[in-house]
């Protein structure tokens, strides 16, 4: 469903991503872990077709993210870092804009909007300007726009950042609910999220892939059997080297 093959991206002299490869199938939820500046968002942006790799290829549902970008993006839902959204729009009109740009119209448009707003649990906030909403609701509005067209692949860059515990739980439940039908990547700094939501975990640091396996296997790389400890040990070693 999703293939990252030897992705390389450099900004000036800074190598953001150096040869990252992995695949993802339907039904998998992949936790994309790494410290700040590890290359998570850059990798996700390449997969979403927002950034072209210097080397390597990214494919969504068999479509190359550069050469068949429109086909690949039609099958993708993407929540960018920081969940950007138009402040003057309401969540309803924001979701509608994304769907219209994807060719939705008529009753299919209305159905998709209602379902997305309901799944993102926007409630009464659906018709208030996004600029007046709390951080949590803003993130939910952007999440609703990412899932509204029922994409086969979802890439969510820190979907629970800034949410309160109840809202985090709501987003995790939504991800679990959608998981059987989709291939989902979530990047997160909240390591407790990994065993709770993800069926697989990847650790990346310094632009390189350090671990690819189940959260259970990740935890068992250390004596303490803790994902947090495993993450710290792996990424600190890379930070010390650089």
């Amino acid at each position, binding site marked *: 469903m999703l293939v990252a093959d030897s992705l390389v991206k450099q900004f000036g002299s800074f190598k953001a991503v150096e040869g990252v490869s992995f695949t993802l199938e339907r039904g998998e939820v992949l936790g994309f872990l790494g410290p700040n500046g590890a290359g998570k968002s850059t990798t996700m942006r390449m997969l979403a077709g*927002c950034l072209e790799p210097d080397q390597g290829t990214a494919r969504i549902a068999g479509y190359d993210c550069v050469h068949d970008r*429109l086909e690949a*993006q039609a099958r993708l839902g*993407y929540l960018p870092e920081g969940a950007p959204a138009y402040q003057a729009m309401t969540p309803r*009109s924001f979701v509608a804009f994304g769907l*219209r*740009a994807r060719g939705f*119209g008529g009753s299919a448009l209305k159905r998709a909007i209602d379902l997305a707003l309901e799944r993102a649990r926007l409630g009464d906030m659906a018709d208030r300007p996004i600029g007046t909403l709390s951080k949590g609701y803003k993130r939910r509005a952007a999440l609703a726009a990412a899932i509204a067209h029922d994409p086969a692949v979802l890439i969510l860059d820190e979907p629970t950042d800034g949410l309160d515990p109840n809202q985090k739980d709501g987003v995790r439940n939504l991800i679990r609910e959608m998981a059987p039908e989709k291939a989902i990547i979530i990047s997160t700094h909240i390591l407790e999220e990994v065993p709770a939501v993800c069926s697989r975990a990847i650790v990346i640091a310094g632009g390189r892939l350090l671990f690819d396996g189940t959260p259970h296997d990740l935890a068992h790389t250390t004596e303490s059997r803790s994902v947090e400890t495993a993450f710290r040990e792996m990424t600190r070693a890379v930070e010390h080297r650089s």
Partner: protein
Amino acid sequence: MMKALHAVYRRELTSYFQTPLAYVFLAVFALTAPAFAFHVGRFFDTNRADLAPLFDYLPWLLVVLMPALAMRSWAEERDRGTLEFVMALPMPLWAATCGKFLAAWTVAAAALLLTFPMWIAVNYLGSPDNAAIATGYLGAILMAGGYLAVGQALSATTSNQVIAFVLGTAASFLLTMAGLPIVLAAVGEEAPVFVSEFIAGLSALEHYNGFRFGVISLPDLVYFVGLIAAALSCAGLLIADRRGGGR
């Protein structure tokens, strides 16, 4: 792809009216255009039933007001991070640039429509050549389109709307001034004729003058349509280049 273009057009047009921008713009245009015509163009003193005093000064108003309308088009998307959302949508960038341009052009057309009391006044006071007036309006809307497209291209170069506005105004001013004797004199009498002719040929004012006098000529039409197409292509290429990430 037309659905994507329409979606962008609809969003952009709505967003102009969701903030005070469109209302302030329309009010300023509706007040300043006649003010120029009455006070600078001496509308009533000419004793002619035409809108020449309006069309004479309109280009200078467009030089300032069109960049104000276009400055947000990409600079705001870059500043707010919504460009990432737009770039992840399965639509070609030409649909986004055209959608944004057409929305801004619609607001500009609405602003020009607000000068209709002057048209009513000259028809009440005399018997103007309404075909010539319509041609003048066609020239004004084409010139507005040219400046909007240039403004959009310059808005794609920065995430700061003020910088986009200053660049857009400077570019529109230069385009307007290019054919004036003062600019050609600055180029120097020693300059080859073809250089002077080329610079004069770039002048939006020169190409607008035909319309101002009620004449529609193919070269003038080609100039404005070409200017719009070239500037929108630049805007699209500048945004597309961001996928390279500074490669």
